[in-house]
């Protein structure tokens, strides 16, 4: 018998061990958060295991490889976190990245690097706008809406490119700088991720926009009654997601030297959602941080890199990635202390 007790008595937080020493440890825990502490411990563990097996892991070169490898999926994970905090989901980010990758290369070939990037971002925003409008005005569940556009945007990318890689950006200074350049020794790819992540962090943490995003995800009726225009926020966040997915698409083009309709971006949505969930974003909305997501992205990057170094078959790597998403959500559910009966809401 489900007993939803409404009289709010002392509904305590998930039981935190009180026996441990309070003081410093407790305070660190509060500032950093239990979620992030466990991620840091997981990272330390994985680094120790892989490092002990293969000395190559600790070389500067390999750290750069990890850093540049996580930049693209990291960008998508950051925006996905915002979407999830708002109580929605965007499965189409990978397809948008593919579409913008190929279109940036095509526009570049016709005009030049500047319009190539601007055009790609414009197309990404249009894709996001369409997602948002389907959800808001068509009253379609976000998962279904973006599942549909996942297929549709991929189709458009294949149509305009005839299914082949397009253009050649490998000789262009700007694209080369994006892919292999660096500022003060930090690769450009990582810088792009750092900038977008910081931007998202500041917006979520310190602005009224961020507060309202948490509010909409936490309780949409209350948000509406408090005067928040929910539709505007939904559409806005999807447009922003489209724009960042487009930046990811441009980076894919830069790294591979040509526009990739599918191959560079397929499966990125899975990685993005896994990272957000692992980083503590609640799939029911209202909860999550960029810091947590970034830690999760690093953990995933190290894992992938480590598995490759240790010679794990890439098919098994896919199995591992899927298992990790399940694990992340299971941990989340257990931590939320909800009853283990019936279908999760």
């Amino acid at each position: 018998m489900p007993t939803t007790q409404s009289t709010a008595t002392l509904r305590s937080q998930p039981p935190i061990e009180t026996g441990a020493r309070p003081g410093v440890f407790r305070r660190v825990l509060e500032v950093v958060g239990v979620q992030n502490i466990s991620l840091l411990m997981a990272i330390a563990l994985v680094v120790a295991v892989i490092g002990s097996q293969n000395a190559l892991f600790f070389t500067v070169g390999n750290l750069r490889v990890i850093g540049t490898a996580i930049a693209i999926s990291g960008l998508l994970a950051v925006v996905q976190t915002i979407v999830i905090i708002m109580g929605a989901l965007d499965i189409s980010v990978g397809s948008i990245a593919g579409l913008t990758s190929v279109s940036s290369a095509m526009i570049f070939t016709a005009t030049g690097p500047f319009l190539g990037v601007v055009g790609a971002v414009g197309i990404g925003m249009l894709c996001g706008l369409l997602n948002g409008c389907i959800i808001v005005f068509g009253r379609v569940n976000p998962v279904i809406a973006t599942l549909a556009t996942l297929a549709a945007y991929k189709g458009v990318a294949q149509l305009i490119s005839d299914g082949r890689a397009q253009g050649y950006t490998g000789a262009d200074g700007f694209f080369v700088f994006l892919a292999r350049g660096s500022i003060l020794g930090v690769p450009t790819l990582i810088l792009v991720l750092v900038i977008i992540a910081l931007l998202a962090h500041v917006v979520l943490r310190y602005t009224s926009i961020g507060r309202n995003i948490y509010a909409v995800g936490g309780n949409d009726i209350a948000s509406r009654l408090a005067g928040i225009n929910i539709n505007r926020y939904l559409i806005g966040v999807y447009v922003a997601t489209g724009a960042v997915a487009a930046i990811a698409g441009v980076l894919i083009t830069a790294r591979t030297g040509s526009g990739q309709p599918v191959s560079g971006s397929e499966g990125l949505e899975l990685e993005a959602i896994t990272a957000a969930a692992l980083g503590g974003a609640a799939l029911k909305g209202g909860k999550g941080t960029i810091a947590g997501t970034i830690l999760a992205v690093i953990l995933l990057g190290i894992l992938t890199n480590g598995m490759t170094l240790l010679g794990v078959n890439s098919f098994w790597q896919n199995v591992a990635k899927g298992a990790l998403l399940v694990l992340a959500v299971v941990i989340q559910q257990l931590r939320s202390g909800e009853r283990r009966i019936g279908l999760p809401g």
Partner: protein
Amino acid sequence: MVKTIAPAASGIDPAPPGTVMLSATGIEKSFGPVRALQGVQLELRAGEVTALMGENGAGKSTLLKILTGDLQPDAGTLTLAGTEVRFTDPRQSRLAGLRVIAQEPEVLLHVSVAENFYVGAIGRQGLMFNRAALLARADSDLRRYGFEKVIRPETLGSALSPAQRQIVEIMRALVDSPSVICFDEPTSSLGDEEVVILFTLIRQLRDEGVAIGYVSHRMQEIFELSDNITVLRDGKFVGTKTTADTNHDDLVRMMVGRDLSQFFHRDPVLPGETVLELRGVTNSHVTDIHLEVKAGEVVGVSGLVGAGRSELMKTIVGDLRVDSGELLMGGTTMSFKAPADAIAAGIGFAPEERKAEALLLKRSVRDNVALARLRSLSRWIFVRAADEKALAAEYIARLGIRTPSSEQLVGNLSGGNQQKVVLARWLATHPRLLVLDEPTRGVDVGAKSEIYAIIDELAQAGVAVLVVSSELPEVIGLSDRIYVMAGGRITGELARDHVTEEQILALAMDESAADPDLSTSLS
């Protein structure tokens, strides 16, 4: 008791009246550092109704959860019919013959009332279940307990009112023929007529030898129904009294440890200009509403459940559309497209369903207080953290919100304090009109009187206040004028000086004024 096809039900023979069926002694329970229950005791006897009283946060709900096995006590013993028991799961207590009727029952929305009754215990014939037999059985059970006019077996769960859901929950419990039943504030969502039916049922069960526990905030009910009263305060056992040997003041003193002689203190001020005026407002929920609220006035809206009161409030605050008629604020005709427009016009709104419609339970008190005026706390888009903190601190102090800090999650506060957080959110916007839908529902006596004081203070300061309440003494004590609604219409307007509960009830049940299509005729 009820005949069941299912084998699971444990038909326990009725014990002789007066036998202690359930006894809890020395119950202790802590959540982290918070001691929710300390040395609490409770006895429920066969054939008697024992009321459990106490302010919110006194530990009543925690105690009920321990009885059912939803929570495990840190110390103490539970005995059921003489044997010591230890439940780790609500199902175990259910099989042992103990049921708690939840305050907000869960109902399966897409199946009929009959299927809802016997969920988990539906009889089968081979692989099929016999729908006609099920409906007939539900019908006879409804008749047996006198609910046949209130609820039909074939109605879908999604079409049920809160009151009807409560009845479904009760019927579900009766299927198991329990020997102990606890009701957790069963009347908070019921209309007066349904309360009468419920009481008849409880008395019937009592006479059949069931031991009954009854949690309620309503004094009148307790005196009408109970044989004994157990009072908790701040998680401690205060005492058990025989109902006949105690009185209202006595109980209030036991519950709050202080006298509430000036429960309703209103200093009516001379009303100022008209703030809100409705001229013939009509939409799919309400019809031809004429109403006005002046500055410094507290105006009550009364009526039975389903009379359209909440819908009227949502129309005023821009959440429901006005189809025809006019809504004026300060003499200017308004057309609100969304609540944001109403907020801009100076309207604040505390809805009926505090948790579902007002609060961000996983966010801090500070966040919740600032929500409706974030823009004015921000420089461009950046929230000025210091100003926000100061605002929260100001209202925590002003409304006496009991919270360890402004960073506490609202979900961890008690009902009364949560309601104060909602009030704080709207007071922070400095509204000209404050609309309060059931501001004291599920709130304890102490917090109630504080909320009344806040309302009075607001009126003194010239705010126009519109209050919906199902509790007649509250509406009468609080309001300068009262509108009564029935079937989506206003059936009468009463002035403060000479209003009685009987007058309000007569107007609330004035079915002649009600449009038959609109009335959700429960009565």
